[in-house]
């Protein structure tokens, strides 16, 4: 059997992508529906976006969510990178299996369990719940994802680059900042982006660990969605989808350009 397009392969991929994208496309289209009824097309309109702009509670929630995601993703990136270094570089140490267990378990742990356990912690040490407790919770969850992403880069990192720096007189701490970090930076950035989106997206853990005055956007959306579909939610969803799509496409175009440049460089090298 040759690699190539058979009608079966083409059809299954086409249907698969139709399934993946149809709901999103429909959601976006209906955000421009003038009618309040989701199923009736009442003509093109941007009134739900205008309404959204006047919904102070929704905007507040969005602002809190954004700050939360920026802060927790940054903290998670620092902690997760340290954790990745620990796992890849420090060989065996006391409690290593406990450590790697604590890194991998949150990845598959149901959110309800993580959320509940963190809430009970915050209650038992009696701190006021709100923005900060959610930040701590998100940092804890997302640092494990960062650790895994950075770890997979560090595993294939050529150690002799660091040894070469040491050999040329560069002390270990400085070597990390001038050699290692610049080279694993793409993975660290990818980890940060993953942490950012996970924090942006989280409903369950935030619901458990939040307190008065810190309602995140997913919580706000969830509470409205329970009462059915509203075009305003479609509108805010469309905005979120657009932002993410632009981000992901820009990142992949950037990668593509780098790839083209690399190929050009290789041709140059062959010419001598």
């Amino acid at each position, binding site marked *: 059997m040759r690699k190539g397009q058979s009608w079966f392969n083409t059809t299954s991929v086409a249907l698969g992508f139709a399934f993946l994208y149809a709901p999103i496309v429909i959601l976006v289209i209906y955000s421009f529906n003038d009618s309040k009824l989701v199923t009736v097309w009442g003509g093109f309109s941007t009134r739900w976006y205008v309404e959204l702009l006047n919904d102070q509670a929704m905007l507040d929630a969005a602002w809190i969510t954004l700050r939360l995601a920026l802060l927790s993703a940054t903290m998670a990136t620092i902690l997760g990178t340290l954790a990745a270094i620990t796992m890849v570089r420090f060989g065996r140490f006391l409690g290593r299996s406990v450590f790697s267990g604590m890194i991998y378990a949150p990845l598959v742990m149901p959110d309800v369990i993580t959320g509940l356990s963190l809430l009970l912690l915050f209650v038992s040490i009696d701190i006021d719940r709100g923005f900060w407790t959610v930040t701590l919770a998100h940092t804890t969850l997302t640092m494990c994802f960062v650790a895994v992403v950075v770890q997979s880069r560090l595993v294939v990192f050529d150690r002799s680059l660091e040894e070469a720096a*040491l050999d040329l007189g560069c002390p270990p701490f400085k070597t990390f900042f001038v050699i290692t970090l610049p080279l694993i930076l793409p993975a660290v950035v990818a980890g940060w982006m993953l942490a950012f989106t996970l924090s942006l997206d989280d409903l369950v853990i935030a619901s458990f660990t939040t307190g008065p005055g810190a309602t995140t956007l997913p919580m706000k959306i969830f509470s409205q969605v329970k009462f059915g579909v509203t075009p305003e939610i479609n509108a805010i969803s469309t905005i979120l989808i657009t932002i993410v799509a632009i981000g992901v496409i820009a990142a992949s175009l950037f990668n593509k350009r780098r790839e083209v440049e690399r190929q050009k460089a290789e041709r140059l090298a062959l010419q001598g």
Partner: protein
Amino acid sequence: MVGPAIGPVRRAFAPWNDPSAKPFIEFRNVTKRFGDFVAVKDLSLKIYEREFFALLGPSGCGKTTLMRMLGGFDEPTEGSILLEGKDLVGIPPYRRPTNMMFQSYALFPHMTVADNIAFGLKQAGMPKADIQRRVDEMLTLVKLEKFARRKPHQMSGGQRQRVALARSLAKKPKVLLLDEPLGALDKKLREETQFELMDLQMNLGMTFLIVTHDQEEAMTVADRIAVMNNGVIVQVATPAEIYEQPNSRYVADFIGDINLIEGKVASAGEGGTRLACAATGATVETNQTLTAAIGDEAWFAIRPEKMRISRDAPADPSVNALAGEVWDIGYLGDVSIYHVRLPTGATVKATITNATRLVERPISWEDKVWLTWSRDAGVVLTR
């Protein structure tokens, strides 16, 4: 095995034969263990200033570990490593006056060629103008003046190898460590570069320590070679001695092609050794002085090119000779390898240099032939 110099002598440089010479680098009873695995076993070795020294052996023999301990990347479990008489143990790699050229080159991919070469100089706190001058000097040395602004991935394998070399030489290290430096190059380029390395070492007057698994490379570049196996040094000697006077079957077999014939010592002592070989059904006579008891197990080692092959029986019946039949011929262009089957069933290899283009009647398959060799053509080995 110190003896009269045999074979071509590269230059009149042999401090290892001078008992008053001070070693530049000295490994003293060095042992390195990784968990249960012993990579280097109670090893002692002296290397002299301006020497081009090769560590040769199969992968996993401990040669790389030995070099990495000198560079400071691994610390010995026991023993000490001295450079100019000072113990290096405990000094981190970034404070050692050695530099290493890595097998993978380890060029920093996010820096230009010039920045790579300047890296070590910057760490040493050299003034900017001096760095610039030194970088230019190094680029000239490796003939890469035009490539200063390029990144490593924009260069060919051979060019990268030269950048790595320039980077490791820039700080004028007391010892340059070369870890399989030419392993990634193709055969032709590798051979050219070997001669360039030799010239460079001679002109700079530096001490080079090279790790390689390629015996030809070691023979070409090095003043002396240490053949390693399982964490110990089996023999340290000049390339010619290693080839002509291997001290063991391991070394004889590892370097080049050889016939190893098992036998029992028939007579030994001053004036010659006689070895009765059941495999060939004959007794081998050599001029070698061997300390062994009669009846001891020993091996006669002879290189295929040291055997003469002919259709005629030797005129002198006292010469070492074997009669057999040509079983196989390998034609390699410059030489031909003959596999000669003896009546006992053993096979002996002999090579002929194809010195003339047209031979009237070359020796062919199933020809009855005689193999002869002189009394000093081979060595008797007891281990």
